[in-house]
């Protein structure tokens, strides 16, 4: 299947692997970004942290490729490589001069398909992941985010930390990880994105050749699937943290998943209207005029099963209750009173330009296609700008009233111990 309107080619190979390619003629750089539907939501609860730990172990080589050889090969050819794991995905990317891709892509494919996960490397790398957890635990914003996630997602796996916990990781074995790897790093769960200075035909040949010989998937404990919860009312939790210099208030609402992208994009607009930039409603009122907060922002994050809408403020502890009440009040107003054309136009311009600004380099483009290709389909990202442009006041306000209600949300408060 090759799409005509979409600027990239989306190709399903015979083994089920998805390839997304876009040539950018003006650049001498190529990005290869491999996305796997094997994030933290693929884990059984007792294996929490496995997906992220595996991302580390992928770089520990195969029977053909000793540990470190891949990193050395990429970097000494002037390229860069790295990886990231979230709930919905793990992804692995290299950025390199276009003429070096044929020499490096087979290595990346070998790591992803045939990771050896040696026992001694497993033990050593676990120490590294435990250090990563220690570092995160010294970050108050990470602690606040985890507390909020648990409260808002309840039993859904989005509520678990991607890093897992030290206790769980200590109990895991290389055999379990190999099982998880072979079960999930399969062609039907993998999207290879190649963008930059390379034409389509050699790319197809290269990817076909490199991404073959997948192991047959072994039986593996199934993921813990819990439904996306309905928030029954207002849930509030306060954490008292040492070394904290400033309190935080984080209010969170659940939104739709990727099966309702149009609605999700509308919530993106509402976030911009409320708190993106100094002339947005909440920043102007609470930071610039009334000076009740050090800063305030709204965030909307799209995920497969459900999205998350947050409003976060950095403020003095004694302003928390007041600010929370004002935010609730402003959300009621948002749903009840017409939103001016100027505000809607401003939010659209901000988001459409952000989209343009974030697709300038091949790596940014590959990330966008890979993300949409993993949680929905890559072509869906093309609908983002036209969907935003169509929104009117009459369509936005019902979204505010349905999703951003002051009657049902989660509030996580951080205060100095």
């Amino acid at each position, binding site marked *: 299947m090759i799409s005509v309107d979409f600027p990239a080619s989306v190709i399903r190979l015979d083994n089920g692997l998805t390839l997304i390619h876009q040539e950018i003629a003006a650049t001498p750089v190529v990005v290869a970004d491999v996305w796997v539907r094997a994030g933290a939501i693929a884990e059984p609860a007792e294996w929490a942290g496995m997906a992220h730990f595996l991302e580390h172990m992928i770089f520990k080589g195969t029977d053909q490729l000793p540990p470190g050889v891949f990193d050395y090969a990429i970097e000494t050819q002037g390229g860069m490589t790295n990886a990231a794991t979230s709930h919905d995905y793990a992804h692995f990317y290299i950025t390199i001069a276009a003429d070096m891709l044929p020499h490096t892509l087979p290595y990346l494919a070998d790591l992803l398909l045939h990771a050896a996960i040696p026992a001694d490397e497993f033990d050593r790398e676990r120490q590294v992941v435990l250090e990563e957890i220690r570092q995160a635990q010294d970050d108050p914003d990470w602690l606040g985010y985890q507390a909020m996630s648990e409260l808002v997602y309840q039993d859904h796996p989005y509520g678990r930390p991607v890093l897992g916990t030290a206790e769980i990781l200590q109990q895991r074995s290389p055999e379990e990880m190999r099982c998880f790897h072979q079960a999930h790093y399969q062609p039907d769960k993998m999207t290879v994105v190649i963008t930059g200075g390379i034409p389509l035909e050699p790319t197809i040949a290269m990817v076909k050749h490199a991404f073959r010989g997948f192991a047959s998937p072994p039986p593996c404990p199934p993921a813990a699937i819990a439904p996306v919860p309905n928030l029954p009312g207002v849930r509030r939790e306060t954490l008292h943290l040492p*070394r904290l*210099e400033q309190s935080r208030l984080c209010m969170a609402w659940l939104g739709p998943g990727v099966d309702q992208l149009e609605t999700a994009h509308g919530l993106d607009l509402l976030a911009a209207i409320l708190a993106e930039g100094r002339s*947005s409603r909440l920043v102007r009122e609470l930071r610039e005029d009334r000076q009740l907060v050090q800063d305030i922002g709204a965030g909307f994050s799209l995920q497969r099963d459900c999205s998350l809408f947050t409003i976060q403020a950095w403020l003095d502890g004694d302003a928390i209750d007041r600010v929370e009440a004002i935010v609730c009040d402003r959300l009621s107003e948002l749903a009840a009173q017409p939103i001016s054309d100027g505000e809607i136009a401003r939010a659209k311009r901000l988001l459409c330009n952000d989209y343009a600004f974030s697709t300038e380099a091949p790596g940014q483009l590959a990330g966008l296609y890979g993300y949409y290709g993993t949680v929905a389909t890559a072509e869906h990202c093309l609908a983002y700008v036209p969907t935003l442009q169509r929104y009117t006041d009459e369509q936005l306000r019902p979204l505010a009233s349905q999703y951003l209600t002051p009657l049902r949300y989660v509030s996580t408060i951080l205060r100095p111990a």
Partner: protein
Amino acid sequence: MTASLLQTPQLHRTVLPNGLTVLVLENPVADIVSARLFIRAGSSAEAHHQAGLVSFLMGLLTKGTETMASMAIAETVESVGASLGTDAAADYSVISLKTVSADFPEIFALAATLLRQPSFPEDEIDLERRLTLQQIRSMQEQPFTLAFNQLRQDIYGHHPYGRPGIGNEATVANLTQADLIAFHRQHIRPDHVVVTIVGRISPEAAQAQVENALGDWSAPPTAPPPLRLPAVTTAATCSRVAQETNQAIVMVGYPAAPVKHPAYAALKLINTYLGNGLSSRLFVELREKRGLAYDVSAFYPTRLGLSKFVAYIGTAPENTATALEGLRTEVDRLRTTVLSDDEIQASKNKLLGQYALGKQTNAQIAQLLGWYEILELGVEYDQQFQDMVAAVTALDIEAVAQEFFHTPYISLLGPEEAIGPVAVAQG
């Protein structure tokens, strides 16, 4: 890869009659224009008792002009979905903007007005001060920042590079509108400004817009006194911040060559060898082979004055002594070991390859070109730097390591029972 920006014929450099330098690079690929307005004065130009002044001033540039209030400025930028920000670095300051190409003339003209005619309204000064003081206090929440501030203070003493750019509570509390106006009058002048414009715009159009907005701006008759940075006279120490963190931070630092020093390229190469990427020496030895850390790296910032070379690691508190020993061993090794040709070549490929990858977006190119120009290295430095790196030899590395890597300044942060004994053992 793009070997040099200068080989591309589109780079246009002009100097207006008032001394303002303009660099334009046309890049029609995306419908985006990025621009930078660089000022040849950074935090190092402020007096000790006014620490934080330049950072404060740059923040206030967008908060009012002779004809526009703060909110009107924000509305102008945000209504067209542009981005406009300011920053104060040690050696320079900068206004950055990015727009789709149709909006560029309006937003560039606004940026030029912010640069020339800020009004520093008293109520905005009060708000900015409150926000800045809170930001200073919030640095206490970040272990890495605290450990680094301590190291920098120890290395530089009263030298301006020893202070955090944001200033400290005592100095920021005392900054006044008169201080801002005086600094602006003395340092922000056309012959100390470089404008870079990169993106979908013709050199003629870009040039015309700069002339329109900034051509009639005249420089004051007397030049500001040239920047004289004091000598660094401190001695190596070991300092510690006791905090009940989950991880200890260990840093070793060495005073290191300024950008115009002959050792600069060799030190950049050493930094790459030790600290850059998954195949770097520190990463492989301390993380991959010994599992001591998640974050272990090195950095060597480019400075007009005396710079610093820093290697650091975050590790479990009980590993503090081991991690410190590991960092010191790896740095000291360069004084006594001649690196192999393969190691040198691999590091050069890495440094030059990543340098090229750092020139992918219009904003990155606008930043790099203007930065070289404002440091008075000239845009030719883009090529010169690459040539200098290519010419570094194994013996150069050894000689530079022997010249700069003596007894390190050490900064430790973590639980007292873990770092205290290590600090005491250092004497």
